[in-house]
Each structure stands twice: as structure tokens, then as C-alpha cells.
């Protein structure tokens, strides 16, 4: 199965808007989900006013909540 590429923005705005919580979601994932992910943190995705931002398989998502991220990961790894 091809790995899902997840990039989490750790820029100042995204940090303040909750990117730490998104990192926690990733850290606490069960191994069966985690092994399908290629995770990286990047300094800024350029949408600072809309954070926290992620890029999921190359597509930018803004105002991502931990619940939404969890759902995205689970859905993508079940495909």
C-alpha cells in the first residue's frame, strides 16, 4: 500500500492555532495507522491566517481540528 504523505505546519500562527494538538494526534496513533503514513513537519505552509494547516497527499487543508485529522488518516488508510 502506498504511504499517505502528511505534512503538518509548525509555523508561529499554526502553533498558536493548535498544530501541537495535531502532532499529538499523530504521536498517539495506533501502529496500524501510523505505518501507512509518511509524516513530516514543515516551517510554514503560507496560509498563516487559516491555521492550523496541513498538506495531506499534496493537498492543503486549513483550520484542521484534531478530530478531522484523525478521521482523514483513518479513512485514507482504509482505502
Amino acid at each position, binding site marked *: 500500500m502506498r504511504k499517505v504523505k502528511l505534512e503538518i505546519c*509548525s*509555523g*508561529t500562527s499554526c502553533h*498558536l492555532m493548535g498544530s*501541537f494538538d495535531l502532532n499529538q494526534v499523530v504521536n498517539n496513533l495506533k501502529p496500524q495507522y501510523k505505518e501507512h503514513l509518511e509524516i*513530516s*513537519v514543515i*516551517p510554514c505552509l503560507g496560509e498563516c*491566517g487559516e*491555521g492550523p494547516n496541513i498538506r495531506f497527499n499534496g493537498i492543503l487543508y486549513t483550520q484542521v481540528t484534531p478530530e478531522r485529522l484523525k478521521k482523514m488518516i483513518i479513512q485514507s488508510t482504509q482505502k
Partner: protein
Amino acid sequence: MQLVPEIGVAQLAKKGEELCGDAVEISRTSESTIIVLSDGLGSGVKANILSTLTTKIAAHMMCQNVPVNEVVETIVQTLPTCKVRGLAYSTFTIIKVNRMGEVHLFEYDSPPILKLSKGKAELISTSTKRIFGKKIGEAYFKLAENEILVIVSDGVTQAGLGEILPLGLGIDGLVHNLENNIDITGNAQEIANQLIEMCETFYAQEPGDDTSVVTLRLRKAKDAVVFTGPPKDSSRDSEIVEKFMNTANVKIVCGGTTAKIVAREINKPLKVNLSYIDPEVPPIAEMEGVDLITEGILTLSKGLELLERNCSKFDSLDGASLLVKELLECDKITFMVGTQINPAHQNPELPLPLRMRKSIVERWKEQLIARGKIVEIYWF
């Protein structure tokens, strides 16, 4: 070769006292660095007043190249007399070291000064002369690169007195510990911290006296440059990155967008460390050719808070602690501050410091200058 003294200071206040009765003052002139350690009579506020007066007077007069007999005379005639003991008394050690490593030492009633060289500790012998009725020890000697001076108050030599060590640590005990138990490979502050922790242990966490350690290590001068904030005019990116890469031997970037600009200009990959060490401080990143990359304004604010709280230990691996630790080890720091405004940071719902890069950098400058650093700021 020009050498600079790297100085570490660590203190313990006597049990039950909020203020340490010892004082340390460090002053720098263009030619030399002056360190004064004084132990005031008694403990607490009274001792602190006596020792602070002594260090301030001595450091200020030594900076003006006033002869030592006038310094001693001024101290003796200025100190307030203790009502109980009828004495005006504080000990002092004055060290003046220049950029060639030549040291001029004066001491009055203080424990001996130790020189550490290649793992061996030796006592500095002094000649005695009488100035204004006081027996003042004086010595001239040369300190080589990487040699360390250890200056202590009697709280160190008396550590553990009557308890764990019946006769106290003593100067021999201090020499033994310096040669065998203290890791002297770290910087001056780390050595001072280890010595003060050792004393605290001998005192069983209840210091019987004010205890101070000052360490001085001679090393080559180290410069740092901190690049934070993108340039207002983005057409200047490449010129400014080139200047950043050629300015100093320690290169630090504070800011995600700034780091991306540097990565683009020097064509190196930027890799953010995945782990958050501290939820308050965003993660650090790595790039070939740059020594430290942190997030911008939050990390700068947190680092400033550590400095303003007078923290002396920076063991944590979060960006702010690493930044402070790195800069405190440098002698000259250049801030290159981009003034481009990130509109998202102007959101009134976000914390105030986010909109105040300028004032935060200015406060960093004040804090670093107070610690004897040379600081320059370039805005662009």
C-alpha cells in the same frame, strides 16, 4: 591572539535567607574584564548590602584604572558599620584579565584562587601588602587558552562543616573534587553549576553560609548572527542571506519563513524535527550550514523570558533554551531583523508579543549587554 574570558556564576543563599550575602560584579572595558566577588559580614539583607556596595565600588573604580590602594580606601571608608559587631567588613577578590590572558589579582580575606590547567588544580600564590591597615594579597600571572580560574567564597570551603564533613570541604577538598569529580570540559557556567550543586549536597540542601562560585575560562572569541524575520523588500533576500552566511561563525535562524528563505537561497534542504520537546515552544529544524533553526517570535519571547528570570541552567532541548545557551556562549551577537509584517500575526486574537518583534529584539539586546556581550542590530 585575542582571547576572551567566559565567565560562570552560581550562588546559594544561606538557609532561611532570601538574599545571598555574597555579590558578584562583572564589568568589561575595551581592554579588560573585571570580576569582583565579595562576601559581606553576616547574612541576608545586611550582608548583601555590604557585598553589593563593595563589588560596585571596586568594579567601577577598577574600570577607571584607579590604583588599588584608593579602591581599598574607598571601600573601607564607605561601608556602613554593623551595629552589633561595630565593624564595617566585607571580603573581596578582584580579578582583572586582559585579552592577552594577563591577570592581575587582589584579594582581602578570601579563600585562595585556583587555576585549573590540564586537569590539575593549583593555588595562586599571592604577595601581601598593607593598604589602609588591611592585608591585601596581590598576584600577577598569565592564563593560557582553556585554563580555568575558580574563585569561591568561604561558603564553598566550609561546605558540610560540622555535618557531612566535620572540618568542612576545605581548599584541599575543593582541589580534590575539581581534579576528580567535576567535569571541566563544559563551559564556565556548567562548571560553576556543578561546583555549587556539590556544595549544596555537602550542606545536605541546607547551606550554613552564603556560597558563591565564579569560574573563568579563557577561550577564543566566538561570534553569532541571528537572522529573524523576512526582509521587507523580498528582492533583497539573496543579498541578505549572503551577508548572514558570511557574518559570524555561529549562525542561527529564528523563524519558519526566514528559514525557508535561507534554504531557498543556499539551496539546502530544511528538515523540521518531528518531536515537540515543550508544548509552549514550536519544534526546531535542521539545515546544513546553519547551527540552529527555531521558530521565530514565540521562541524569541520564551528565550527572553528565561533571560529576564535570570535562569542559569538551560538543560532543556526546546528551541528557546538552545537559543539562549548558544548565545550566552558567544561574545558578539549580530541580530539581522527583517521587518516584513506577516498579516496573520496582526490578528488581535493572537498574543501581543507576536506583533512586537522589534521590542523583543531590543529587550534581547539589553539582556545580552547586561551579560557583557557586544550586540548589534541591523533592520532591513
